[in-house]
């Protein structure tokens, strides 16, 4: 199946009572040297900074700025080309004897500025969706949470089976409210 020997894999979902317990558990996981685990919480919290997602995070958060810069450049280039084609090559409207084309470049600055900002905004939005893997209609963590009647309020540590030996034992030692084993289909592996 797609050249993969074992596309079915396993993972664990451990629930914690509150943010403080989650933070303590995340610290323990980090100190234990485990990889490929993440935190799920109803709001951004400190435990997320400790999570280890080496196998999955092909898209670091810092890259988002790069998407914005690339979008801005692309927007600027498209606007430049458009202005060149429409205001210089073809017959254009000459209003009040004004020189057309790039010779009157100050009059084209507002349009260029808007194009650059539009490109930057669209670039950031696309980068955000890609980085957050959205839209995503199948994810094993999502299915595992929903299967347990998620209230949207859970503090979880989710760990992939390929994150290292003894992940389950480590999670159990952190005294979670519950811990569930989940089998999932994931070609890429990881989170």
């Amino acid at each position, binding site marked *: 199946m797609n050249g993969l020997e074992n596309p079915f894999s396993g993972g664990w979902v451990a629930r914690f009572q509150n943010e403080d317990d989650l933070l303590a558990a995340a610290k323990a996981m980090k100190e234990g040297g485990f990889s490929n685990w993440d935190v799920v919480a109803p709001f951004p919290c400190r435990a*997320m900074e400790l999570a280890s997602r080496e196998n999955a995070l092909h898209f670091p958060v810092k890259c988002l700025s790069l998407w914005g810069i690339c979008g801005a450049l692309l927007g600027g280039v498209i606007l430049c080309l458009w202005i060149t084609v429409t*205001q210089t090559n073809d*017959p254009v409207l000459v209003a009040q004897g004004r020189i057309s084309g790039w010779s009157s470049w100050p009059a084209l600055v507002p349009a260029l500025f*808007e194009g650059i900002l539009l490109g930057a905004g669209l670039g950031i939005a696309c980068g*955000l969706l890609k*980085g*957050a893997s959205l839209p995503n209609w199948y994810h094993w963590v999502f299915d595992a949470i929903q299967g347990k009647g998620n209230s949207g309020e859970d503090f979880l540590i989710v760990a992939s089976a390929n994150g290292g030996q003894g992940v389950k034992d480590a999670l159990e030692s952190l005294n979670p409210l519950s811990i569930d084993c989940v089998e999932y289909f994931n070609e890429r592996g990881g989170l």
Partner: protein
Amino acid sequence: MANLKHQGRDDSSRDDLLAHTVVEMAQSRTTFAWKFIFVLSVLAALYGLGFSSWKIASEGVGVLGVGNSVPWGLDIVHFVFWIGLGHAGTLISSVLLLTGQHWRSPIARGAELMTLCAVACAAVFPIVHVGRIWMAWMVSPLPDVSGIWPDMGSALMWDVLAVTTYFSLSVIYWYIGLLPDLALLRDRCSGALRRKLYGLAALGWFGSGRQWGMYERGSVLMAAVLAPLVVSVHSVVSFDFSVTQVHGWHETIFPPYFVAGAIFSGMAMVQLILVAIRFFNRSGVGMFIDSRLLGMTGRFVLGLSCVMGVMYFWEYMTAFLNGGAEKHLLLNRIQGGGGWSFYLMIVGNLLLPQLYWGKRWRRSVPVVVVVAFGVLAGMWCERWLIVVHSLEKGWREIMNSVYIPSWTDCWMGVGSLGLFVALYMVLARITPFFSLCDMRKRVRETEMESGAAS
């Protein structure tokens, strides 16, 4: 440890109340007052905008009060008024985010929503105002539709580009901010269809660290793009006037003047919306929209009122020192040439907000309502003076004319108000009005700060 657990229960009960409020706002039954106002607004929008637009399209712009001397009338006044409100919303949200103002959490989403509704209302006017509505697509950047390309050096084309850019990015910014809260509604709402729809809208969000990291970083970057965009957009709107040779329009102070006025009127509108939301959703909402929040927005209004005072002083002093037709025009306004509008502008924009120097009045709901209506009326009058009065008074006495709005003009204004109210009521109901994750984070940070201090 026991203390920690106890604190944990307090936190979770507070979080529950926050989440419960958001969910209840989305799925509670509408009250009679809500239905009455909504139906009234829809009818006003249908008749005011729908019927009037059809009338203008079928009979021509002759049904409006405009003529050769005053080609821009009430419709353009309303366009600038709504676009000003629209620009304020995202600016308030993005600038407060970038400057780390924690009190923004309860008002940010409402301000963004105001942007979308107000820009939708504003967009109607220039389209209708061209008369031949079916030809409005010719301003779009399509090749050779009439043998020539749109002139990119024209302020009107800048305006089209700026407003469409702004609207597009505002929708994206608003929607990205909604994702975690839509996921919460997916998980907590009752009803299969409702859960399904919210699930689709949430795009599969489940709140992993990776997603939150992207969300936080993306929100700040989008805000950083939107802040200069908003300033540029309302500056571009002011260029529609200031690049012309018309007295009263040809002023270099217009860009900052317009931007400050837009934020001013927008914050007043946000205050009205907060009061209305508190009135219609009593349970839980009062915890977030409290008198302290009204006080903070009141300070904002007061500060901007002072800025507007400086702008007016600057504008009038420049005209008086330079003399000529400009001085004649502005003197005419002071002497009552523009009717009651000059004095209403001064009272609404400069005098009424001075009440906010008093802390008690800043936090009083009746005072907030009076001042906010005063500011909105004052800003409307300012746009009336700029657009209409400047055109009424020509270079010479023989060029003077009087603009009298037609019934169609007036109904267009009423219709736009109806459209705004109806759109806002629907969107505030089906989408979360508060950014829950943002508010929770702020609550935690405040608690941690107070804990560290104690």
